[in-house]
C-alpha cells in the first residue's frame, strides 16, 4: 500500500472521530466537512500568503504547520461556538439538516469570497514534509493523540455526561447534567478536530478548494461512523480507514467502483446495524488474543 493512500485513510479516520464526538452525546451533526474546509483554507491562505508561514521555496517549516493547525482548529471551533447554542437546540433529523445547511453556506462562501480563489481554490501550498511517509508519521501521531483523548473521555465526568445524554437527554437533565453545555463542548471539540485535520490535509493535497467541504463529504464521513460503529471510538477509526481505502482498492474494477461503494454503504447498515465494532466483538477479540498469549506462555517455541 502506498503512503499517499495510507495518509488519506488516516485523515479519514480523524474526520470520522470528528463525526463521532457529537454522536457520542446523541447529536447527529453533519457539519464536519464544513469545519474541515475552513481549517484547510486557514492553512492554505497563511502558508501561501504570509511570509512567516511560507518558509523558503516549496517547503514550509514544521512550526508553521503546527501554528496553522492551531489557528485552523481555533477558527473552526469559534464558528462552532458561535452557532452551537441555537443550533444544538434542534434534535435528530432537524439538527442533521441544519448542519447540512451550514456546510452548504460555508461552501458557497468559500466559492465566492474574494480571497479564497474561487472554484479553482488555492494552489502550490508548500510542503512541510518531503515525502508522504513524513505526513503518515505525523498524522499517525495526531490520530493516536485523538484516540487517546477519546479513550480518556470514557473515564471523565464529561464523557459520562455525554453518554447519559445519548441514552436519554431528559433524564440526564433531570439528574443535574448541564445538557446544553455538554452538547456544545462535544460540538466544538468536533469542529476543532475537523479544522486541525483540514489544515494538515491542505498541505498534503498541495491545493485546496470548496469541494473539500461538500454534502457528499458530509455523507461519506457519516458513513464512516455508521459503518464502523458509533458507540466506541475504534468504530469510527476503523470505518474511516476502510471506507477511505475502499474506492482506491476497487480501482481494478473500473467503472463499477462507485457502484460497489454504494452497495457497501447500502448493505453495511442492513447486516451490521450497530456497525462493525461493538463492545461484544471487542471483548471476543480481547479474549481470543488473551488466550493466544496464554497458550504461547505455556508452550514456548523451540528456537
Amino acid at each position: 500500500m502506498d503512503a499517499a493512500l495510507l495518509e488519506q485513510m488516516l485523515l479519514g479516520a480523524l474526520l470520522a472521530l470528528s463525526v463521532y464526538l457529537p454522536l457520542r452525546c446523541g447529536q447527529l451533526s453533519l457539519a464536519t466537512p464544513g469545519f474541515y474546509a475552513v481549517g484547510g483554507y486557514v492553512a492554505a491562505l497563511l502558508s501561501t500568503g504570509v511570509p512567516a508561514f511560507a518558509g523558503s521555496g516549496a517547503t514550509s517549516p514544521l512550526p508553521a504547520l503546527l501554528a496553522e493547525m492551531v489557528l485552523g482548529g481555533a477558527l473552526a471551533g469559534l464558528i462552532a461556538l458561535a452557532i452551537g447554542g441555537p443550533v444544538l437546540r434542534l434534535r435528530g433529523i432537524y439538527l442533521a439538516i441544519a448542519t447540512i445547511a451550514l456546510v452548504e453556506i460555508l461552501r458557497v462562501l468559500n466559492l465566492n469570497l474574494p480571497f479564497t480563489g474561487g472554484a479553482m481554490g488555492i494552489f502550490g501550498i508548500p510542503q512541510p514534509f518531503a515525502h508522504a511517509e513524513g505526513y503518515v508519521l505525523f498524522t499517525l501521531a495526531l490520530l493516536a493523540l485523538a484516540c487517546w483523548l477519546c479513550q480518556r473521555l470514557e473515564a471523565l465526568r464529561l464523557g459520562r455526561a455525554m453518554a447519559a445524554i445519548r441514552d436519554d437527554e431528559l433524564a440526564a437533565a433531570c439528574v443535574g447534567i448541564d445538557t446544553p453545555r455538554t452538547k456544545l463542548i462535544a460540538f466544538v471539540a468536533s469542529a476543532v478536530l475537523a479544522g486541525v485535520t483540514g489544515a494538515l490535509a491542505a498541505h498534503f493535497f498541495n491545493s485546496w478548494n470548496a469541494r473539500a467541504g461538500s454534502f457528499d463529504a458530509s455523507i461519506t464521513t457519516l458513513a464512516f461512523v455508521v459503518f464502523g460503529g458509533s458507540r466506541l471510538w475504534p468504530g469510527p477509526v476503523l470505518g474511516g480507514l476502510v471506507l477511505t481505502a475502499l474506492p482506491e482498492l476497487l480501482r481494478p474494477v473500473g467503472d463499477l467502483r462507485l457502484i460497489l461503494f454504494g452497495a457497501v454503504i447500502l448493505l453495511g447498515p442492513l447486516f451490521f446495524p450497530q456497525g462493525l465494532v461493538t463492545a461484544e466483538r471487542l471483548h471476543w477479540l480481547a479474549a481470543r488474543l488473551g488466550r493466544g498469549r496464554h497458550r504461547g506462555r505455556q508452550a514456548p517455541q523451540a528456537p
Partner: protein
Amino acid sequence: MDLLQILVNGLSVGAVYGLFALGYTLVFSVLGVINFAHGAVFTLGAYFTYLLIGGAVGANGLLAGFQLPFALPFWGALPLAGLGAALVALLVERVAFRPLRRRRADPLLALITSLGAGVILVNLIQLLVGAESYAIPTGALGGLPASFPLLGARVRTVQALLLGIAVLLLALLTLWLEGSRNGKGLQAVAEDAETAQLLGIDSAAMVRLAFGLSGFLAGVAGGLVGLSVSIAGPYFGIGYGLKGLAVLVLGGLGSVPGAVLGGLIVGLAEAFVPADWSGYKDAVSYGFLFLVLLLRPRGLLGRPLPTKV
C-alpha cells in the same frame, strides 16, 4: 429585467422545488426519515423523459447510440417517465428501507442506506449513458410556441408549464389525501403506524404508496427540469435534492401545502438575488432554512413538535 419577469422565473423554479419537496414530505410523513435517493430518482425521471421522446444516447457509456424504436410526444413521455421513476422509488423502498423496518433498526440508518441506493443509481446512469449533458428539445412540446407575452413580460412556455403542473399535482394530491380511502389511510399511518395497523390499515402498502407517489412526483419534476434547463449529467439531481431539503424544513416537515409554499418562497427569493451577487444565490435557501430552524423549528406550516417523555 422587470418585476413580472423575476416573479415568473422565481415561481417556476419554486414550483420544481415544491414538487421535489412534496416527494420528500410524503415519505417523511409516513416513515419519519429522509429518503436521500430522492435526487437520483428525480435524475432518472429526466433521463426517462429524454429517452421516451426518442432522444439518442451519446457516444459514452455502455448504451452508446441507443435509441428507443418509437418517439412519444412530451405529453405521453412525461407521465410514463413518472411511472418509471415510481417503480425505481419502490425498488429503493424494497432494498434500502424495508429491511431496516423489519429489523426495527434505528430509523436514522435509512439516511445511509438510501444514500447508498442513490450513489448506486447515479453511477449506474453514468455507466450506462455517460456523463455528458442532454437537452430535451423544446420542439417536443409540439405546436406550442417557445414563449408568449404576458402583461409586457415574455414568459417561456416551459416556465408556465412547470408552474401549472406543480399547482395541478398539488391540488390532485390534496384532494386525494383528504377525500379518498387510501389518502386517509396514508394520513392514519403518518399519525401512528401501529395503531393504523390495528385498525385494519395495511401500513406496509401505505408506505409503498407513499414511495410510489413520491417517485412519480420526482420523475415528473425531473422531466420538466430536463425540458427547461437540460440534463447536466448524472449528478444534476443532487443540487435539487439539497434545495428540496431546505424547502422541506422551511415549509414544515410532513406538511403538503408547506412543501409547495416553501418551494415558491425559495424560488422567488433566489430570483430576487441581484446578478452581481449570483454566486451567493445557492446560499439563500440555506440561509432561510437556518433562520426558520432557529426561529420556528416546525417550519412555516408544520405542526408543533411533540416533546416525548
